[in-house]
């Protein structure tokens, strides 16, 4: 296992499967009467969140606490960052406090990579700008495998704001490694430049892709990242790229609907779809804790920050 988790693309097939298998064992802890393992006693995990994210921060915090690590939450608001402290000085401060792992969420793509060069502990990318969100991709893969029993050969369709989505980027990289086939569906304005080089198909016609999708993953339309207008109206977007009950009926019987959250009900996903038995949205949150426990264990469980080689 590597020392940091910065990109889903850094994981080999064996490493990714090790994370998923480890997460499957960690999931049993959630069912046990005592939801706590002594594994990371005495280790310190810092949640360094420069962007708001209750969901991911809470998930990492719970994962670390279930492994008995000490957790420090450090958010940009109300910290020295709002007084103008740079990332490097923040990092060195945390380093001096003896952090064994830093979980970082940052609005700038690449911030975790910079951080990894400055600190001795492990760095976990919890989302950097529009770049990557590897633990989300791992929990998505975990959810697909537990629902459908396999990943190899699965047809996975990612729909929506591919351009701004770090979830899409990480998922494409990881699913490719694990042998699934990915199709991206979005309005042309929300498809990134250079998508030809991605290991994925691109389609602009949602209805044609639906009947052969084992997994449909709806992505949130990230209005906060959109300076310009990418589509004429919410209504039009929803008509062409939203998943409603009629579209869900076109899916093969076993297929599942995923969403990384937080979702805009009525925009990219209709309420009756989000609440249907095909939806894995709540499971994804539960699985997120198990997967993050697995990542923290594999990075921190061993000697000297995890390097077992």
């Amino acid at each position, binding site marked *: *296992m590597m020392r940091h988790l910065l990109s889903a693309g850094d994981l080999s097939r064996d490493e990714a499967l*090790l994370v998923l*298998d*480890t997460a499957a*064992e960690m999931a*049993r802890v959630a069912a*046990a*009467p*005592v939801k*706590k*393992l*002594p*594994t990371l006693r005495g280790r310190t995990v810092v949640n360094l969140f420069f962007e708001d994210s209750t969901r991911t921060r809470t998930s990492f915090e719970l994962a670390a606490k279930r*492994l008995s690590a000490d957790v420090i939450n450090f958010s940009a608001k109300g910290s020295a960052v709002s007084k103008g402290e740079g990332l490097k000085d923040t990092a060195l401060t945390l380093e001096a406090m003896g952090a064994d792992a830093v979980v970082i969420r940052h609005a700038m793509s690449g911030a975790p990579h910079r951080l990894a060069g400055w600190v001795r502990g492990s760095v976990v990318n919890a989302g950097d700008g529009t770049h990557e969100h590897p633990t989300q991709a791992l929990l998505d893969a975990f959810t697909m495998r537990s629902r459908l029993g396999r990943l190899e050969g699965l047809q996975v369709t990612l729909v929506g704001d591919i351009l701004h989505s770090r979830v899409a980027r990480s998922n494409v990289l990881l699913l490719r490694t694990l042998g699934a086939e990915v199709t991206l569906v979005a309005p042309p304005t929300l498809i990134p430049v250079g998508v030809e080089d991605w290991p994925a198909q691109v389609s602009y016609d949602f209805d044609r892709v639906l009947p052969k999708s084992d997994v449909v993953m709806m992505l949130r339309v990230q209005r906060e990242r959109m300076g310009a207008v990418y589509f004429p109206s919410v209504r039009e977007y929803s008509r062409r790229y939203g998943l409603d009950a009629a579209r869900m009926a076109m899916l093969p019987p076993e297929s599942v609907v995923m969403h990384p959250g937080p979702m805009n009900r009525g925009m990219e996903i209709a309420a009756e779809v989000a609440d249907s038995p095909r939806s894995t949205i709540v499971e994804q949150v539960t699985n997120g804790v198990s997967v993050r426990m697995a990542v923290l*264990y*594999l990075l921190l*469980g*061993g*000697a000297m920050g*995890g*390097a*077992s080689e």
Partner: protein
Amino acid sequence: MTTAPDPRRPRPVSGDRTAAHPVLDAADVTRVLTRMAHEILEKNGGADDVVLLGIPTRGSTLAHRIAEQMASVEQRTVPVGSLDVTLYRDDLRLRGVRALGRTELPPGGVDGRIVVLVDDVLFSGRTVRAALDAIGDLGRPAAVQLAVLVDRGHRELPIRADYVGKNIPTSLRETVHVLLAEHDGRDGVLIGPADLSRQESRQESRQESRQDTSS
């Protein structure tokens, strides 16, 4: 480096398993497991409330075999589960990350039951210590007992087995190989010289004695 040779046996010369000499053959292993099954039944007055928990990988296999023997004597099924103790080990920081084995409790769990832990080799006692902690997080058994196929001595903790297949006095430099048909193609117990390249600590040599626990 001076070894501590056992004067009763000629020393094998190389580290491969062909140089290891057998202590128990396949028939012996079967006899020993049958006896252990009867001992468990005798001590607990039958199989009521008894749950076997094997420590992966070979402990789980042994637990299933003992449970089958108990079941054929008592004409009833005996619940079996497996308990991976990796996350409870005290040497994680020294040895680096390992893949986890399976933990599966039989239906009904361990609350109020008599849990018999099953492992292949009892050595330092640290695995059993970790297993006791793990059981404490899973429930509250009425009692915990320990069954091992081989007790090779050299305890580092105040732990003893209730049921021992075979006591094998060893030197620290030796390794005990437990072979089971499900993993190794045949049953048997061998004693061999330690693989010196891997002998960095006693935990190392214990791990060596259990073969590839990831299989």
